[in-house]
C-alpha cells in the first residue's frame, strides 16, 4: 500500500482532524510537524506540496490532498478500519451538516479569539521586518489579511464581539444537540465527533462561565467520552504547545 504522510501543526482545529481520523482508523502515517508559529507553512518546501500554504495537507502515494474535513472523508472511505460515517443516509447528512456548520460558522469565531489570545501574542515578540517578510510569502490574499490582523491584534471590537456571540450560541447549540443522542450527529461515533472535539476540547477552560458541568452537562459528558478514546490520547500526545495541553482539564472529575 502507498505510504501516507501528513503535514500538520498541533492536534487542534484543522490539523487535529485528519491526525485523529487516521489514528482512529489505525492507519500508520509519517508525521511532519509544520510549525505554524515559525511560518513553516509558507516556506518553499511546504508550498511545493500545497501551493495554497494552508495546513494540513496529506500525501497518499502520488496523491496530494488538502482541506481537513475533505481529507477526513477520504481517509474514512479509502482505508479499512472502523467506519467513521454512520450507515443511514439521514445520519450521514447530519454528520455533513454539523461539519459544515462548525467549519464555516463556529470554528472561524473560535479561531479569531484563539489567534488574538494565543497566536498573535506568540508571534508578535519577533522582529517586525521578519514578520512582514513572512506575511509577504503567504500565497492567498485573504490569508494575508487575516495574518496581519492576528499578528498586529487589529481585529475590530465589533468582529471580536460577533465571534464571542457565535461562540456562546455555538455552545448552546452543541449542548442542545448532545442532549438528543450520545454522539453529536448520530448514535455512533463519527467524523462529526472528531471535527467537533478538535473545535471544542478546551471550551470548559476558555469559556468557563458558559460551559461547565452545571450549565452544559451534555457537552461535558461528550468531551470526556471522546477524550477517553485511546486514539485521542495518542493524538494529543503529539502536541507541543501549552495550547493543546489544555485538554488535560477533561481529566478533572468536576469542572
Amino acid at each position, binding site marked *: 500500500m502507498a505510504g501516507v504522510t501528513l503535514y500538520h501543526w498541533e492536534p487542534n482545529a484543522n490539523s487535529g482532524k485528519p491526525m485523529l481520523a487516521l489514528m482512529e482508523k489505525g492507519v500508520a502515517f509519517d508525521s511532519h510537524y509544520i510549525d505554524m508559529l515559525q511560518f513553516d507553512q509558507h516556506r518553499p518546501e511546504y508550498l511545493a506540496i500545497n501551493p495554497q500554504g494552508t495546513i494540513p495537507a496529506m500525501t497518499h502515494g502520488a496523491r496530494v490532498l488538502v482541506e481537513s474535513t*475533505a481529507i477526513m472523508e*477520504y481517509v474514512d*472511505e479509502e482505508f479499512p478500519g472502523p467506519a467513521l460515517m454512520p450507515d443511514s*443516509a439521514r445520519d*450521514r447528512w447530519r454528520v*455533513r451538516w454539523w461539519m459544515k*456548520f462548525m467549519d464555516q460558522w463556529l470554528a472561524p469565531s473560535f479561531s479569531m479569539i484563539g489567534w488574538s489570545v494565543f497566536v498573535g501574542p506568540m508571534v508578535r515578540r519577533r522582529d517586525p521586518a521578519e514578520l512582514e517578510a513572512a506575511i509577504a510569502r503567504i500565497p492567498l490574499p485573504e490569508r494575508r489579511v*487575516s495574518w496581519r490582523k492576528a499578528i498586529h491584534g487589529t481585529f475590530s471590537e465589533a468582529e471580536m464581539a460577533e465571534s464571542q456571540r457565535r461562540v456562546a450560541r455555538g455552545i448552546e447549540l452543541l449542548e442542545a444537540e448532545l442532549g438528543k443522542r450520545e454522539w453529536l450527529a448520530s448514535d455512533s461515533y463519527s467524523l462529526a465527533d472528531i471535527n467537533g472535539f478538535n473545535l471544542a476540547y478546551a471550551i470548559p477552560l476558555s469559556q468557563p462561565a458558559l460551559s461547565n458541568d452545571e450549565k452544559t452537562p451534555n457537552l461535558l459528558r461528550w468531551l470526556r467520552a471522546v477524550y477517553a478514546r485511546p486514539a485521542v490520547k495518542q493524538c494529543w500526545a503529539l502536541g507541543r504547545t501549552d495550547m493543546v495541553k489544555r485538554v488535560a482539564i477533561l481529566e478533572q472529575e468536576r469542572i
Partner: protein
Amino acid sequence: MAMVLYHGEPNGPSLAVLAALAESGVAVERRRIHLLAGERHALPGVTEPLARDMGIEGEGPVLVIDGEAMTESVFLAQFFDELSDRPSLQPRDPHAHWEMMMWCRQITERLSPAAALLGNLAVSRKGLATMPDGAFSALIDRIVSADLRARWEVLRDGAADPAQVEDSRAKVSQAVERCEGKLADGREWLMGDLTIADFETYAWLAGMQRIVPEAFADKPLTAAWLARVGARPSVAGALAEADGEAAAFWAPGPEINRWG
C-alpha cells in the same frame, strides 16, 4: 418515511436540489414556497428546526422528515443520491469523491456568497425596499439566526459595499475560469462523469450570465457545458416549472467570509 421538500423557484440551491432529486428518482412530496416572503421560516410540522435556522446556505431548500429540518443543497443532493437505486452522482473512488467534494466546497464557499449578493442586489432589493415596514418586521422577526436576519436587513436598507460587489464579480469570473480549465481536456462533465458538482455549479452560475456577462465572454467550453446541463431533463423540467424567468429569483444566501 414521509418526506416533504420545501423549495423556492428553480434557481440557486433550490435548483441544485430539484435537479438532483429528479435524477435520483426518489419519491418526495414537493411544495414550492415564496422565499422572499419569508415562508421558509414558518413551515408546518418542523419540530427540529436547527438546520433550517442555522444553515450556512441561507434561504435554501428545506427537506422535512419526521419533523427534522434538513438543509444545505450539496448534502441534500448526496442524501437523495444515497437513497437512490439509479447510477450514482458521486464517484465511487475515494480520491475522485474527494475531488468532487472539494469542488463543491469551492463553489459553496466562494461562488455562492458572491452570486447571492449580486443576484439579490440586482433583483430582490427593489421588492424588499417597497415592502411596508410592518410587513418586513413581521417577516424578519421569524428568522432565528441573527446573522441571516442581518443579511435581510442590509439587503433592504443598507448600502451595497462597493468592495464586496467588486470582489463578488471577481469570484464569479474565477468560478467560470475554473470551469473552463476543468473542461479543457474535452470532458463532458466537470468531474468527468456526471456528478452533483455539475448541478451545484450550474445552479449558482446560470443566473450570473445576465448579471456578470463579461465573466462568460470567450469561454466556449463553459457555455457548451452550461447548455448541456440545462438540457438535462432533470434541470429543464425544474426550470419549466418556474413562475417567470428562473434565473431572476434570488433570496439571501451565505454570508461573505468574515475573515476578509
